[in-house]
């Protein structure tokens, strides 16, 4: 085991037991129990998934502007779904379903929590690893199996499922209602395995945060990133269990003949389906009891990363740290009692809309607090425009834009018009899609030097930021206008409805969106190139703390040694964002700096 020097930033430390470093390739890189390797595994999985998901959305966008035009190669790849390269409506729906599922589960849930959370959280709290390293490995490999199951759905008879990422029965429960067969079963199996993985991961994150913090690192000294990973884990623990149960019930309905979600007397194409007594609305309750917290599972880590990075590069402490913590907690709690706003027009009791609506509008309050505090953090700062900072500022803008359309949808009366239109598509893509992904871009460019010992190319990152930031607005901004028309979502083409084909402008808007989408997708290859190039040939980072940041991950060598602190866990003396303290020697004070280190020996504050 190599001896590692303790960073000069660490004032005092506690000796802890060290674990032997794994020797073989297999135990070091594949079946690793090291949270850092697992974090990178999650990130790589998410990168593969995000490009798959992006490719699917390309097909979706192409069919919307040219439903009849053959697309080269597609016919060879999917002879049934796209005969001669022309996508059938059911193939369109399958692509849509898989796009949503891949993005929500394999990207938005894995990267922010499984990727960055896994890698950074133990280091930021001064732990050698997660509380249960083997469980952590199991979480990742379950997620991987879940991804394979989902991908398998493309290649089975009947192809991928077409009931949407929400999988509403009876469409998802009654094989006769769709052209798909086992694809839907694989979809459910994939989700179920994913739920197990996420439950295990959630337990691990919660125990790690509560039990393994360094000496002096009280909860109210936790970096906001850790707070969001912690609250996200609690949400995951409570939400994924419900989805797992719902998934198992749906699988039974499809294959064993139970009737949890399928009522009696169903007649599909003149054929009576043998079921009795279930309720399709039950699935919606169970699904959205998971589904709404899932939105926060996707976005909360992005909020944490944004707070962290805005403070670091504005050289200011987070404005209203306590208010930020309370807001995170409030969003977490309220997130569990608003699922009904997805169901205002589902046929559930209209009385319940009152409760769900007012609670939904209440979520606007902590969200507003966070936005004000982000702007307040930059106010009076000295902003350094690094690429992580640009992505974080972009996050705030996208969060505001995507959040405010929620105020329309949270009111049942206004939702009557907008429900299941492109207005909703615009809303959730801006907030849980691209805002969350901007959080990931920010996190990746920020922690890349620590993880890999090299910087990402700053110029390429900035080009990627400008084009992606304007690009996503060009894609999702006009979708609000489609919603005004009102253009229902999940329509394979616009030829079936008169008011969309006439002079409504729907076709022009679709063309504009598709062109913007294609350009923005191309820009993502700049990012991919930058990622791969920087891994191999990026400018090396030899410093421990290249960004002059304050939290513990910057007090260890780059890249981090095995066991993170090499058995010497630093003590924590201060809050996470002590920037620009008056009287201090530098414009930042690390959490492991005591007052003597910050103000110099003999100074008034240091005594």
């Amino acid at each position: 085991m190599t001896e590692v020097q303790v960073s000069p930033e660490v004032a005092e430390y506690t000796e802890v037991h060290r674990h032997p470093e794994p020797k073989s390739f297999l135990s070091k890189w594949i079946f690793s129990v090291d949270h850092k390797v697992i974090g990178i595994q999650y990130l790589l999985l998410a990168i593969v998934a995000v490009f798959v998901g992006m490719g699917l959305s390309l097909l979706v966008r192409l069919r919307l502007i040219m439903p009849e035009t053959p697309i080269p190669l597609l016919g060879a790849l999917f002879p049934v779904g796209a005969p001669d390269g022309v996508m059938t409506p059911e193939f369109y729906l399958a692509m849509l379903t898989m796009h949503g599922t891949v993005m929500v589960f394999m990207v938005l849930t894995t990267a922010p929590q499984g990727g960055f959370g896994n890698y950074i959280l133990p280091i930021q709290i001064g732990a050698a690893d997660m509380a249960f390293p083997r469980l952590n490995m199991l979480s990742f490999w379950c997620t991987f199996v879940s991804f394979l199951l989902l991908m398998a759905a493309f290649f089975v008879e009947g192809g991928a499922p077409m009931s949407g990422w929400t999988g509403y029965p009876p469409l998802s429960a009654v094989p006769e209602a769709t052209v798909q067969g086992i694809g839907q079963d694989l979809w459910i199996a994939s989700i179920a395995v994913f739920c197990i993985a996420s439950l295990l991961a959630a337990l691990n994150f919660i125990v790690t945060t509560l039990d393994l913090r360094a000496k002096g690192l009280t909860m109210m000294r936790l970096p906001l990133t850790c707070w969001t990973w912690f609250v996200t884990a609690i949400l995951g623990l409570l939400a994924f269990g419900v989805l797992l149960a719902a998934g198992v019930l749906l699988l039974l309905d499809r294959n064993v003949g139970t009737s949890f979600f399928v009522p009696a007397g169903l007649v599909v194409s003149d054929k009576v389906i043998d079921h009795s007594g279930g309720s399709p609305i039950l699935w919606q309750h169970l699904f959205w009891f998971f589904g709404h917290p899932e939105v926060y599972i996707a976005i909360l880590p992005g909020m944490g990363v944004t707070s962290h990075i805005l403070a670091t590069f504005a050289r200011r402490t987070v404005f209203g740290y306590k208010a930020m913590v309370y807001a995170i907690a409030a969003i977490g709690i309220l997130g569990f009692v608003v699922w009904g706003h997805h169901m205002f027009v589902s046929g559930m009791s209209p009385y319940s809309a009152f409760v769900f609506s007012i609670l939904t509008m209440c979520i606007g309050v902590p969200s507003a607090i966070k936005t004000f505090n982000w702007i307040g953090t930059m106010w009076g700062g000295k902003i350094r425009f690094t690429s992580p900072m640009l992505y974080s500022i972009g996050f705030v803008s996208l969060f505001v834009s995507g959040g405010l359309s929620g105020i329309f949808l949270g009111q049942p009366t206004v939702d009557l018009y907008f429900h299941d239109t492109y207005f909703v598509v615009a809303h959730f893509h801006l907030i849980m899609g691209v805002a969350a992904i901007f959080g990931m871009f920010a996190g990746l460019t920020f922690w890349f030097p620590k993880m890999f010992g090299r910087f990402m190319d700053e110029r390429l990152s900035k080009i990627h930021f400008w084009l992606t930031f304007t690009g996503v607005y060009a894609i999702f901004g006009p979708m609000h206008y489609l919603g005004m028309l009102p253009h229902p979502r999940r329509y394979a083409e616009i030829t079936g409805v008169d008011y969309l084909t006439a002079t409504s402008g729907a076709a022009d808007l679709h063309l504009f969106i598709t062109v913007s989408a294609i350009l923005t997708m191309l820009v993502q290859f700049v990012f991919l190139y930058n990622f791969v190039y920087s891994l191999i040939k990026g400018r090396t980072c030899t410093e421990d703390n290249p960004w002059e940041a304050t939290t513990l991950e910057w007090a260890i060598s780059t890249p981090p040694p095995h066991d993170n602190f090499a058995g010497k866990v630093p003590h924590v003396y201060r809050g996470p964002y002590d920037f620009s303290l008056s009287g201090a020697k530098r414009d930042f004070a690390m959490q492991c700096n005591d007052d003597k280190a910050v103000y110099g020996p003999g100074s008034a504050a240091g005594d």
Partner: protein
Amino acid sequence: MGLLLAIVVWGITLAMSIPFVTQTWWMPEPITALGREIDGAFMFTLVFTGVIFLLAQAALGYAVWRFGRQSDEPASDSHGNTRLEILWTFAAAAIFVGLALYGYTVWAETRFIDHKSMVQTEDRLVVEVTGQQFVWNMRYTGEDNEFGPTDISLIDDAAGNPVGVDRSGPGGADDIMVPEMRVPVNKDVEVVLKSKDVLHNFFVPELRIKLDTVPGLVGKLAFKAEKEGKYEIVCSELCGLGHYKMRSFLHVVSQEEYDAWIAEQASYVF
């Protein structure tokens, strides 16, 4: 770089807002009193959120520009401002909860008050709408003002009995099945929503009402159209491969025209 970012943020903000001001892509005119109230709630929300949207993005751009300039001033070491924190918490709560409460009265009228009174109106017209992949079936009671019993074993799409009306029993003989909906103008109409197979959604944009048709459940909507015309009924819940073309029409016509039409339909019934 701060100024450039500020200009981009402001530019995007303006570009996104302008079509909402010019109403370039807009909702069709509502044809009911409730529709106008719903539009009122929408406009109210649009103004409030629009102002917040502009202010928040403007402040973001300004902060980035103002504090992104090179200067020798050290960054402020203020940790926050409790008074400000309380102020914006309450301001946000007042606006958001206020909007929710404002919306409540309209929701109550949409789904309770008018509906209740309409159901109690004796001379209302009741139309049963049954969704199936991928058509709408409209059933009228015929002269006896009563829907006949249905039986799923009698369902036969080809023979023109898509919901399985028992023609032999009382009430069923004069039931009328049509693919499009026709109602008199200024008449209270109750829509009874059903589904044969999967979820569908009954949505007429001009009426501003929308409700899923759920197999196993009966949904109810009510409206009173004030303007004659032909309006589209579009399915707004994913129902399968033909979802995009599952639509029908609502014809709002004069009472005379309606009477003539219904008489003609009745003549087809044995």
